[in-house]
């Protein structure tokens, strides 16, 4: 089988992975070698579904011995199978890289034979890239649950980022949908990587040239909508993953049904994109806005509001804390204003040191007032009178374009090729300015 065919099959099998980020670490190649990565990362393309393509995201092999019910590559599917040789994949990475198609490689794999064999094969790809080709581009590798910790460690010395997919948000779902996997063999490598990173940090302060272990940190991903867990459950799980394992990112992947199974949502279920989007917004609140999961969601209403983003939702149920005076409010409070993001809040802080801010100046600073105007004052002046009740508030905010084109939650079905998320929504999600 030639490389064109392998790439077709193994890209197809890798596409459900949400992450494609190349951020978190800086490296430069030695003289005469190729590659560099920058902490900010870089998206080189966007696929037809609007997702960033930063890395060559492929499986090393899709010949899986496991049988996870939700997965395209499961053993019992009648599906074309392919496996890259390490050399093929390393060469392909370099050739794409030098043409400026990608920032590096995101290497994942089905379990071929055993977790150990799979990991060894992956290590060989990374070894060729790093040691033979001196490649300093970005590499994200999947740690395979059940592999020998020594192998996982070796993988982590070659990669920038490692991730172990938590797959499903609860142990029960794992048992029923991914029968070959267990909570234990997912959390074990996660713990190992966490400890590895902490020890490595100490080593580096002691010996300057200690090899770096997973310098861009670890991440994980879970499928949303294949199993019955609520957003309440998912957000608390996310919070504890950040706290317990020091993860850099938790990714959510809206479940795309691939097969009929009594344990799975029916085959014509549409991927819950809006839900995924709201979860990402909530995740931003946890990571950058100083929110706790318990502020964003409560067990009595365990799903995020479909029509209002989680920050707005929080704000309308805390109307007593508003309006906020932009000339005096502290950074934390500015961040809690719907429509003001990290960038906006920082610009406000910088600019107000020199002059009193009014609404025109805010506009000049690039602060979008569409949302924010309901929640702020400039030297006591308002642009919009705050409605008295949360319900009226939501109505006023939403009325110009209710629904925003979203299609899940039982709204009218648009055709398959209709836009589901607006560019604005996705930009918000990527930049966190909401």
């Amino acid at each position, binding site marked *: 089988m030639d490389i064109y065919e392998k790439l077709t099959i193994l*890209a197809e099998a890798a596409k459900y992975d949400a992450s494609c980020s190349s951020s978190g670490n800086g490296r430069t190649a030695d003289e005469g070698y190729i590659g560099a990565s920058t902490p900010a990362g870089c998206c080189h393309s966007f696929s037809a*579904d609007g997702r*960033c393509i930063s890395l060559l995201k492929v499986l090393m092999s899709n010949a899986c011995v496991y049988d996870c019910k939700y997965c395209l590559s499961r053993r019992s599917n009648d599906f074309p199978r392919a496996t890259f040789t390490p050399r093929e994949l390393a060469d392909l990475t370099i050739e794409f890289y030098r043409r400026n198609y990608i920032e590096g490689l995101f290497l994942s794999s089905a379990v071929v034979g055993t977790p150990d064999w799979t990991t060894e094969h992956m290590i060989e790809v990374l070894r060729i890239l790093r040691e033979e080709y001196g490649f300093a581009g970005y590499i994200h590798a999947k740690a395979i649950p059940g592999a020998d910790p020594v192998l996982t460690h070796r993988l982590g010395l070659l990669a920038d980022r490692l991730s172990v997919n938590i797959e499903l948000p609860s142990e029960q779902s794992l048992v029923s949908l991914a029968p070959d996997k267990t909570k234990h063999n997912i959390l074990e490598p996660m713990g190992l990587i966490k400890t590895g990173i902490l020890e490595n940090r100490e080593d580096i302060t002691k010996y300057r040239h200690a090899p770096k272990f997973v310098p861009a940190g670890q991440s994980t991903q879970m499928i949303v909508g294949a199993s019955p867990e609520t957003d309440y459950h998912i957000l608390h799980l996310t919070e504890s993953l950040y706290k317990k394992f020091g993860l850099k990112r938790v990714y959510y992947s809206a479940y795309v049904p691939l097969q009929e199974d009594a344990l799975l949502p029916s085959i014509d279920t549409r991927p819950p994109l809006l839900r995924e989007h709201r979860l990402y917004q909530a995740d931003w609140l946890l990571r950058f806005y100083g929110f706790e999961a318990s502020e964003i969601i409560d067990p009595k209403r365990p799903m995020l509001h479909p029509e209002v983003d989680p920050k707005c939702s929080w704000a309308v149920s805390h109307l007593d804390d508003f309006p906020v005076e932009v000339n005096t409010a502290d950074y934390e409070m500015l961040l809690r204003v719907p429509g003001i993001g990290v960038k906006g809040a920082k610009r406000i802080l910088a600019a107000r040191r020199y002059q009193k801010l009014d609404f025109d100046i805010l506009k000049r600073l690039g602060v979008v007032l569409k949302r924010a105007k309901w929640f702020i004052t400039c030297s006591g002046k308002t642009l919009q009178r705050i409605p008295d009740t949360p319900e009226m508030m939501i109505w006023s905010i939403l009325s110009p374009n209710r629904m925003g084109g979203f299609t899940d939650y039982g709204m009218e079905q648009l055709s398959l090729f209709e836009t589901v998320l607006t560019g604005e929504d996705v930009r918000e999600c990527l930049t966190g300015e909401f």
Partner: protein
Amino acid sequence: MSYGGILIFAYDGSYEGFLSTVFDAFLMKTLPADIVIFDDAEPSLMKMHYIETNFEHAKRVRLGIEKKLSTKTLCMVEKAFLFDGEGKENAIMHFLWKAFKEGPSTGGKIGSEEVNRVFKMSTAVSYEAERFRQFTRFSDSNGALVAVIHPKHFVLPLIRPYFCNRIKNENFLIYDAEHGVALIHSPEKTAIVPIESLELPESTDDGFYSRLWKNYYRHIAIGERYNPRCRMTHMPKRFWQYLPEVQEELEPGYVPKLSFGTAKEIANSIRASLPEANY
């Protein structure tokens, strides 16, 4: 200090030339009514002051900005100067005039109009540079990499470190056809040089890797999530000309080719698209 509005300054269009202009303005304590480039200077009733580029003056201005204002301010001014549009010299001159009067914090007063204009220009240039870090594509011609770009602003100096870092072991050329300059790099040497025109050599790898890339691009999208509007926000159409992966979508009558559906449907469509039948 004499009042602006009587003099027009003319310089050669180079960065050093512009800094020399700044030097003269401060020396003469005169804010010029306008700043133009020799070549495009139209006959005018106002008095013209011709400025010869003086590297010593330029250096002093650069140091002055860095020391008396801040490195950040210098950086913003340098980026703003790469802006390709009417009135950039005036905007920067007015900003510097204000900044030297009001001190090092001026660069941060982005709420004020003079500062905001320069800030906006520098942000626009940064935006454009970032797009060309993302969307420049090379093709391989006998082992050398070549790319042509048409940026709105003069971004080569800004994207230079990015490319010279990541592919420092390669010979490459990025031709800015809009501004008639090229970034030329070999492992030994890098330079930005003016070039009148350029015949692009044919790619010699027979488009093998660009075909692989196009195929990859097609199969990495999830059909059920098709979202052209979102893609367009991140990858505006004016960049598509550089991207092999979307070329066929530019052809009239293009119908999206996406794989979606059940595992079985995906398997069948893959089998149908691949020549071998024996998987």
